[in-house]
């Protein structure tokens, strides 16, 4: 695809497997996507759908074995999965960095915050300790931590959850990466702090023009920050759309289900129930159903869905779905069926 020419990160057929005592778990089962410079790409899905694993696979932060990663991850012309240890180390933190979900445990409790930022800087730039600390304090100022000089000399346990996440953002931005992988950055925070952090990230992004892959299960966060969204289910991408189109016109039954399950005031009057859920549960990765993975829970399922996996259909630029309903022939059959019964 010529998309690749313009893209910053290009993932093709990424597969990540885990070899466990109970069998092989295909956490990520062949996904393709691109990330363009300066954009915020949302990656949405339920817990366990493989979105976090995707991020870890890109930076190769998984222990291999028991993990096994295959595919192509092109970044600045090189396949990251082919790089040796040294090379990937250089990319980490300076080309691509990562923010993690749990600010409580993701910072080293026995090192000062300033040091944790400074060491990242020193790893990628040839500067001395003093200089790196100065830059670290600068970074803390950028993420709006008050009294950055004093704070930089403190240990993580003195920071609140929101502050720790800011510190993590500071760490991630310290070497001016082109891409940040943000794994559920706000999930562990209080709602008010969430809003603060999101605002902060928006602001910083504007300044630095860093691309962000925002991984979350929270559609609200996506709505705020992302320009384009990928929906993942059970290790595969099922839909991709620009943000507005996704919310206005979701094509995949799963996406529709997700959007419907957001509590809305007044829904009870409309549909008779306050909450809409998607029936059933995510299939066990050891026991994936044949055919479309969403089939057991889909209310619009067709016969073919149970036996064959639907192909990915491109519906326009940055718009695709993986669903039999979208394949024209099936669509017609479906509407025909309706005509007959209706």
């Amino acid at each position, binding site marked *: 695809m010529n998309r690749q020419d313009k893209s910053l990160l290009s993932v093709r057929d990424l597969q990540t497997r885990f070899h*466990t*005592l109970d069998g092989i778990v295909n956490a990520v089962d062949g996904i393709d996507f691109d990330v363009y410079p300066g954009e915020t790409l949302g990656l949405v899905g339920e817990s*366990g759908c493989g979105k976090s694993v995707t991020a870890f696979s890109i930076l*190769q*932060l*998984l*222990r291999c074995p028991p*993990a096994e990663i295959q595919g192509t991850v092109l970044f600045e012309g090189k396949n990251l999965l082919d790089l040796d*240890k040294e090379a990937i180390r250089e990319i980490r933190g300076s080309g691509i960095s990562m923010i993690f979900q749990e600010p409580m445990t993701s910072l080293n409790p026995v090192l000062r915050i300033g040091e944790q930022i400074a060491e990242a800087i020193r790893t990628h730039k040839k500067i001395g300790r003093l200089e790196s600390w100065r830059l670290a304090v600068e970074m803390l100022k950028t993420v709006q931590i008050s009294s950055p000089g004093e704070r930089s000399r403190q240990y993580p346990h003195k920071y609140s959850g929101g502050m720790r996440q800011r510190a993590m953002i500071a760490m991630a931005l310290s070497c001016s990466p082109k891409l940040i992988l943000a794994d559920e950055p706000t999930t562990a925070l209080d709602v008010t702090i969430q809003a603060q952090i999101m605002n902060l990230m928006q602001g910083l992004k504007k300044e630095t023009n860093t691309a962000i892959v925002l991984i979350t299960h929270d559609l609200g966060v996506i709505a705020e920050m992302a320009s384009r969204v990928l929906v993942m289910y059970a290790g595969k991408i099922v839909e991709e759309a620009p943000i507005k189109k996704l919310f206005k016109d979701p094509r995949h039954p799963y996406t529709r289900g997700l959007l419907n399950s957001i509590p809305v005031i007044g829904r009870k009057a409309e549909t008779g129930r306050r909450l809409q859920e998607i029936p059933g549960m995510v299939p*066990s990765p050891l026991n994936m159903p044949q055919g479309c993975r969403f089939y057991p829970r889909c209310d619009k399922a067709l016969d073919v869905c149970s036996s064959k996996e639907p192909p990915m259909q491109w519906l326009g630029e940055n718009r695709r779905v993986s669903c039999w309903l979208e394949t024209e022939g099936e669509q017609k059959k479906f509407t025909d069926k309706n005509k007959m019964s209706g």
Partner: protein
Amino acid sequence: MTDIKNEKDSMPGNRVSDSRFKRSWVKLKRNKAALIGGLLILMYVMIAILAPLIYRGNPSAPNLMKSLETPSIEYFLGTDELGRSIMGRIIYGSRISLLIAVGVVFVGFIIGIPLGLISGYYGGKIDFIIQRITDTLLAFPGFLLALALVAILGVGIKNTVISIGISMVPIYIRLVRGCVLSVREEVYVEAAKAVGTRDTMILIRHILPNVMVPITVQTTLGMGTAILFAAGLGFLGIGVQPPTPEWGAMLGSARSYIFHSPHVATFPGIAIFFSVLSFNLFGDGLRDALDPRFKL
């Protein structure tokens, strides 16, 4: 390809605790070291039980004519200073050591488990008292405690068992109490209480099974420790008394002859070593297999 991040299974839980036992069993079998340990233990127990069949004759009967002979066809492992077959004494010694180990664990069980259960379950003043005592006992390192107890009680096999047993009791109490404390808050315990089950029943039927897991591991390792301690006391001359063939005591009396006949000291030590090793191997394997965190 570097490092760790575990994939957390957020699948519907179709892993019930029954299969937890199966999983543990599978894990255990995979662990070669544990298997070797288990095998050795079996060998050890067999030897101990079948001792009279393997070695005929009185292992304690002196035969001064043949004193301090090096290993030969007739005496596989040589003889000690009183002319007794070392091999025979080692074989019979296995009984003594096993007996002591079992006795020690027994003492630990009888005293430690109930105290731990009570302390953990009822809390309050009883807990406080028991904990203070436990702390005091634990303030002494194990062997020294046993040593001190022997100082008070005197020597001999019975006192050895009691002393070492008591020195292990605090460990059991702590272990059991910890387990009880965590299980006590579980919903099914509350449910049982709500239905009106008597406390003793609750303790036995609900709490005890959960406690058994760490207890089993501790017991296995404890038997190894017991053998070591007993040998230590024997070596110092304040454990099992001669002429009973206890490995530690054998080493103790061998000391004087070490320059002349080192073999007298070598073999009993090897026996101690292997028996303790087997318990440690198996106990470790058991611990790894039963530890829920240990996924491959």
